[in-house]
């Protein structure tokens, strides 16, 4: 072979090998720093497969290194019941983070930026095993949620029979605090009773007989307001906007963008299988979805709805979800404080409970 031909061939092959080598390096994902395990986690819409890893296993105290990206839309990585700020995952961009769990148990990681209809299903598990069996056992036995202790039927209708004529105001109700009986200010009463029930009990009190119905409702609003604070309500507003407003509506009317076209939820019509049937049609194409059990939530601004529900009942619905409607379960996601604040926030749609606690 002539020399120029040889040189040309060598030059060509060198270039081709360089291109090929780049491809090989890119195709093998585990090229990276070796200390600790690096898990490569791809976020995808649940329709496209969800998280690329369903479960991440680790030992207690062992750092978990994650290298994350999104393959389709903007997602976010967050750990349930944790203070960790979520990490936004933009398509094609990589983020790295390291997690450490000191306590063994099951932890949930989930997506916090809406990524479609099935966004809430985008959850995975981190299984942290530990040698301390006792701690693990203790972690398992948590307090039973109140709705179980009270044996509440989460799926039964809870419409209030007696409703206020005007929106109850905690600001007006505050002036009546001194006159209220002790039980009314007790946290236990708040947790286990609906506003309507508390109102009915107050209505039977002779000491309050001079107050008209509306004033009593204001007092109930104040009782509700005392159990929370403006700071907690503000935080809950953020939680609501991020997690709930897409279905329940930014104004609580149950008209969020995710439930457009779905039939309105009517608990009076639940079939044995737990699917809600339709009593009100909102648009076209409901048949398939009502058979799937998806429905639009009720209107929180309608006083009949919330005023007949106790915080224990609401907590149960949030924890368990379901009801044959597509409502997600939030047990692994919210901490107890977040849950309390969120429940208190929900009542704001029916009562004006945003008042400063002196």
């Amino acid at each position, binding site marked *: 072979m002539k020399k120029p031909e040889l040189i040309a061939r060598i030059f060509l092959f060198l270039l081709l090998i360089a291109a090929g080598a780049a491809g090989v390096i890119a195709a093998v994902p585990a090229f990276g720093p070796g200390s600790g395990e690096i898990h490569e986690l791809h976020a995808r819409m649940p329709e496209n497969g969800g998280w690329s890893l369903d479960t991440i296993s680790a030992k207690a105290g062992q750092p978990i290194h994650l290298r994350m990206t999104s393959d389709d*839309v*903007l997602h976010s990585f967050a750990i349930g019941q944790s203070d960790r700020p979520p990490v936004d995952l933009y398509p094609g961009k990589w983020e790295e983070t390291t997690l450490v769990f000191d306590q063994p148990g099951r932890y949930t990681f989930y997506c916090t930026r*809406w990524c479609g209809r099935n966004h809430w299903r985008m959850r995975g598990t981190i299984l942290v095993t530990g040698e301390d069996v006792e701690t693990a056992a203790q972690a398992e036995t948590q307090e039973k949620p109140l709705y179980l202790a009270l044996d509440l039927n989460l799926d039964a209708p809870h419409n209030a029979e007696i409703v206020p004529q005007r929106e109850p105001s905690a600001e007006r109700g505050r002036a009546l605090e001194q006159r209220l009986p002790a039980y009314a200010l007790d946290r236990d009463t708040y947790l286990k009773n609906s506003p309507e029930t508390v109102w009915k009990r107050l209505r039977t009190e002779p000491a309050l007989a001079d107050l008209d119905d509306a004033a009593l409702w204001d007092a109930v609003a104040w009782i509700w307001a005392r159990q929370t604070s403006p700071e907690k309500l503000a935080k809950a507003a953020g939680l609501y*906007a991020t997690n709930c407003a*897409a279905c329940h509506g930014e104004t609580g009317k149950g008209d969020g*963008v995710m439930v457009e076209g779905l039939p309105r939820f009517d608990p009076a019509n639940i079939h044995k299988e737990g699917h809600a049937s339709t009593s009100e049609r909102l648009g076209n194409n409901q048949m398939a979805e009502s058979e799937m059990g998806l429905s639009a939530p009720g209107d929180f601004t309608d006083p009949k709805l919330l005023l007949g529900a106790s915080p224990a009942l609401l907590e149960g619905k949030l924890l368990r979800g379901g009801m044959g409607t597509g409502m997600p379960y939030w047990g692994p996601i919210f901490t107890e404080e977040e849950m309390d604040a969120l429940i208190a926030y929900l009542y704001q749609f029916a009562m004006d409970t945003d008042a400063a606690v002196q």
Partner: protein
Amino acid sequence: MLSKQKLFPWIFLFAALLIVFAPLPIQAQPVERTVRIEAGDYAFSPAVIHANPGDRVTIELVSKDVVHGLTIDGYPDINLQAEPGKTARTTFVANRAGTFKIRCSVACGSLHPFMTGKISIGPNLLLYRAGGLALLVLISGAVYSSRKQKAAQ
């Protein structure tokens, strides 16, 4: 002596300058305007928005499926981000006239690079002037070809 032949180029040049530079009368007064734009499935709805120069425009961006963004070419200060449950709002003064593309600024899937709409602030002068010039090109072309044919006969 100015022959017709020598006159034509000047006539067309004058017409062209007229088309390009003649000011159009200002038609509409600025108003306050609110537009609700739904973003979903790689499209904005409505995708075409009109405003008068000087309008105070409020845009409400409502997302129907995933996180979408909204930017407007020529208005670099506008950058909205909305997702289901979180409507985004911004208000700006439409001081720059013209027709500008509205783009989605958050990667929202495969067709994201083509998720566009447009906002027309004032009449689309570029389109009208360019269209007028195109017509002028045709007319001048017709004149020249008929003169060429006459000359050949």
